């Protein structure tokens, strides 16, 4: 945005309400413009314009309004939207939620500045994601395959090991046949300090820190900054992907904190609330973050997004996971039941989904039997789980022999296929072979999702024949 009018300073504050300042007597202030607030003690805070009519501006203060007085406070309008100077040297560094260095290291020579809100990618220039990413995790690679340029969130609950899983994905993710590693951009949105330390330690230990940029807004820092943090992170991601040509993995955690901040600002503005008090535009707002993933024609790089969110009360119909699920290309759902059974990663495959899976798998990408194996795993496991609840009512002994085999299959599936070590990196062939070992436990005519010739080729029984 042009800074036609330069910096203007005003001091008539009519009202302070929650995180909002209402400033009167302003002129030539533009929508979404960035603001600097100087308190009477000389300290400074930042904010932006949310609503502007002739001479009244509504300003949202990122750091909160605690301590601001109506007299002696100066409000400066900076004549531009919030921007981030970007550079390749930002990898390996740690920033606060507004994109300012906090690691005490040397200043970075600032590159070009970009509006953190970005612009929507023209759908006509997007390239459909189709490069298989091997995460080394069977439940993901085998049944909910991630592809480069996808946005695949982890729906978790408080206390579940989503951070460990995200870190395992970040460490193990690779594209078959390419040595190129992903650069990771990590946005911590209102997370606890120990979670931050967990991530930081991990990146340091693995020597990955020099290909990671971290943007950190901690739980005790101002909530309003959370609205900015993911956008700052994605602005750097877009620069690195589309101008430098790198493959970027963006981890956003925890999007639930983001949505809470959105609700807070909405109610401070006295807007008509939508479901459970979240604003009616939360869908569009979340989309303006999640849609900043993908690949485009004519550019090398890509952005793959793994947002993490904790479902309040493990409820997947809560507005935050619900709206997210409508925007993202699938979801990985973690289950408390599996976790309590001692299964890591506790991925509930039945509720999980990768919408872009079909493009990333099959002959030449993973293996020709992949899609049939995945279909069959779903069919057999869901039948086993159904029978499990039936057996709980009428007793296992009243099930027929066939049904009991499915029951056993479900148990084996959880113990052998789902369960793996936090440092266990299975290649996709191993994952599929484990699935075939499990199929051998079922009668062959129950494998209705697999074609005859595929069974002949991969079923352990027939393999033994050869």
């Amino acid at each position, binding site marked *: 945005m042009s800074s036609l009018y330069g910096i203007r300073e005003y001091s008539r504050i009519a009202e302070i309400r929650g995180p909002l300042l209402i400033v009167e007597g302003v002129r030539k202030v*533009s929508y979404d413009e960035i603001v600097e607030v100087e308190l009477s003690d000389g300290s400074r805070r930042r904010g932006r314009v949310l609503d502007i*009519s002739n001479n009244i501006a509504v300003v949202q203060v990122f750091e909160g309004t605690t301590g601001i007085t109506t007299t002696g406070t100066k409000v400066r309008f900076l004549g531009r939207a919030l921007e981030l100077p970007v550079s390749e040297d930002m990898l390996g560094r740690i920033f606060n939620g507004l994109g300012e260095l906090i690691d005490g290291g040397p200043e970075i020579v600032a590159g070009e500045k970009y509006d953190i809100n970005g612009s*929507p990618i023209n759908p006509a220039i*997007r390239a459909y994601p189709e490069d298989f990413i091997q995460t080394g995790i069977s439940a993901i690679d085998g049944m909910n395959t991630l592809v480069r340029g996808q946005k695949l969130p982890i729906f978790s609950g408080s206390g579940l090991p989503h951070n460990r899983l995200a870190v395992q994905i970040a460490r193990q993710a690779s594209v078959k046949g390419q040595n190129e590693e992903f650069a990771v951009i990590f946005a911590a949105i209102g997370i606890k300090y120990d979670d931050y330390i967990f991530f930081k330690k991990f990146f340091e230990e693995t020597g990955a820190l020099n290909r990671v940029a971290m943007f950190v807004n901690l739980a005790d820092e101002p909530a309003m900054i959370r609205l900015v943090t993911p956008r700052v992170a994605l602005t750097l991601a877009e620069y690195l992907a589309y101008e430098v040509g790198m493959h970027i993995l963006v981890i956003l955690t925890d999007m639930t904190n983001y949505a809470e901040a959105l609700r807070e600002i909405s109610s401070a503005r006295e807007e008509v609330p939508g479901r459970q008090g979240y604003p*009616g535009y939360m869908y569009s707002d979340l989309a*303006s973050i999640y849609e900043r993933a*993908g690949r485009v024609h004519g550019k090398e790089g890509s952005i793959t997004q793994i947002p993490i969110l904790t479902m309040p009360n493990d409820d997947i119909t809560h507005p935050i996971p619900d709206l997210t699920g409508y*925007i993202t290309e699938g979801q990985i759902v973690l289950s408390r039941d599996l976790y309590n059974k001692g299964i890591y990663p506790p991925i509930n495959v039945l509720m999980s989904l990768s919408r872009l899976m079909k493009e990333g798998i099959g002959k030449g990408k993973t293996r020709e039997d992949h899609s049939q194996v995945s279909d069959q795993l779903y069919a057999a496991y*869901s039948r086993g789980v159904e029978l499990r609840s039936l057996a709980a009512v009428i007793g296992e002994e009243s099930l027929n022999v066939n049904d009991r085999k499915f029951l056993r299959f479900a148990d084996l599936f959880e113990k052998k296929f789902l369960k793996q070590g936090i440092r266990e990196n299975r290649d996709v062939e191993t994952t599929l072979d484990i699935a075939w070992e499990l199929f051998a436990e079922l009668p062959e005519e129950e494998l209705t999702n697999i074609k005859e010739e595929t069974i002949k080729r991969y079923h352990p029984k027939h393999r033994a024949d050869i």
Partner: protein
Amino acid sequence: MRVRGRIKRISGPLVIADNMAGIQMYEMVRVGEERLIGEVTRIKGDMAYLQVYESTTGLKPGDPVEGTGSPLSVELGPGLLGNIYDGVQRPLSSIIDYLNKIGSRRSIFVERGIDVSPLSRDKKWYFTPSALNTGDSVSSGDVIGIVQETGLIMHRVLLPPGIQGKVSWIAPEGSYSIVDPIAEIKVNGEVKEVYMMQRWPVRTPRPYRLKLEPSEPLITGIRIIDTLFPMAKGGTGMIPGGFGTGKTVTLHGLAQWSSANVIIYIGCGERGNEMTEVLERFPTYKDPWSGKPLMERTVLIANTSNMPVAAREASIYVGVTIAEYYRDMGYDVLLVADSTSRWAEALREIAGRLEEMPAEEGYPSYLASRLAEFYERAGRVKAYGSPERVGSVTLVGAVSPPGGDFTEPVTTHTRRFARVFWALDTSLAYRRHYPAINWISSYSAYIDTVSDWWSKNVDPEWKAYREEIMGILVRENELQEIVRLIGVESLDEKDKLILDVARMIKDGFLKQNAFDPVDAFSTPKKQFELMKLIIDYYRDATKKVEGGTPASRIKELLGRLYVDIVKARFSVPNEKLEMIYKLKKEALKAISSA
């Protein structure tokens, strides 16, 4: 006189301008120095409330606002097919070319204030005039010539609505651009030039002579739709479903396989990659009815979820106006909108900014009437003009209920206006039963109207078989309740057979893999034969069970043939139905010894 005013207030996509006396309701306006596109949604004194179709970041009070004198309109003419537009008909591919041409480094993004014509002014089309002579009387809707728009569609150039007079000149056969005059018509002594391009305001339905009853099925190749819950050409339908239940895959299937001539695909507040999928795949996919690339019959309207919300509200109208235009040429048009919930939410957002009194869940009270107006634009009609033409617009909207809850306002109101209800079921989707259309809660109001077509073109017994298959599914649903309480063993043998056959129907008929080359599309004949195979087996088996054979024994006798029946959907191609006859013979023989 164009109205010129000044911005007074900005709040998200809503801008209030003053000094706007004389502006019309729904007039299109240009806002700010960048001349962003907007539309008037309310007038109060000399103030106009504008919804702006692009991001309002950087607008300031005092910036100019200018009326354009006409309501938001679309350009109609050859060149629409195969194109992708945003919610206000800006051509997205041409925007990339334009940005590259001016050397922009940000050509992968949709930037603001770009003004590119929807239809190319430079491209020449080969126009063949109708047999018209000077002095012939013509009226609106008459076909004055034809242009081969794509390999699939012959574009009929229609005299725009509201013109009636005598031909004073018509262009000879040859190549013309859409802005070259191709005819002159004398209207009340005044000569009017006619072009291949015309404009039409999106919020006004295009006129037609007569509405007809939808009586012909829209064949989609999706078995559960065509056989159990059929759609009619000119009908209305809705697909509600929580996330991950396969709304988009079903809509892609409809766009890909259905027996319409023209497809309008509106991505309304959905994922960018889904539009990309259509855009990348459709040029390589073949239309099952003609063998030509699918893109030749498709127009895409894309307002992805991160594009400006106000344009989302407009995108539905832009799409349906283009649909009506091809309908008027005499084509069967299918419009799919993914998703109407996002459109309703856009309505809600704007209403909220206008500080209107909210009704249910914050939606404005006129939500129902807006939905009704939209679905009323569907229909099979006799068009104005000669030669006589019958065309249709079929509307199918996806609905994304929050939390998968079908009692929310958009779903409940849409149900009143859509006559086919394909309910997607989360529990089916979790089991990977696709399409996850629930056969108990879905319905179609067109079963009786299309059954004539089926009995004439496929088999006179279609309706009887269809009822029988539905009967089994409904009974199975009741039985499952009982089984959940007391187990299978306590059922009587006939009911156990129903459970077995229902499983066969689910796995071998209702499930359909949209990505399997054989299974993805079933001809009406194959659908019928698959259904007949299972029902004929059921009828014979029932006799055996009534004769005292236990259901488990029947299943044993069937043996491996069970697997063959269930897999027939992807092992028997459409053109090799004799394999089904053979399979049936073997199956009936296998159980005959019981």
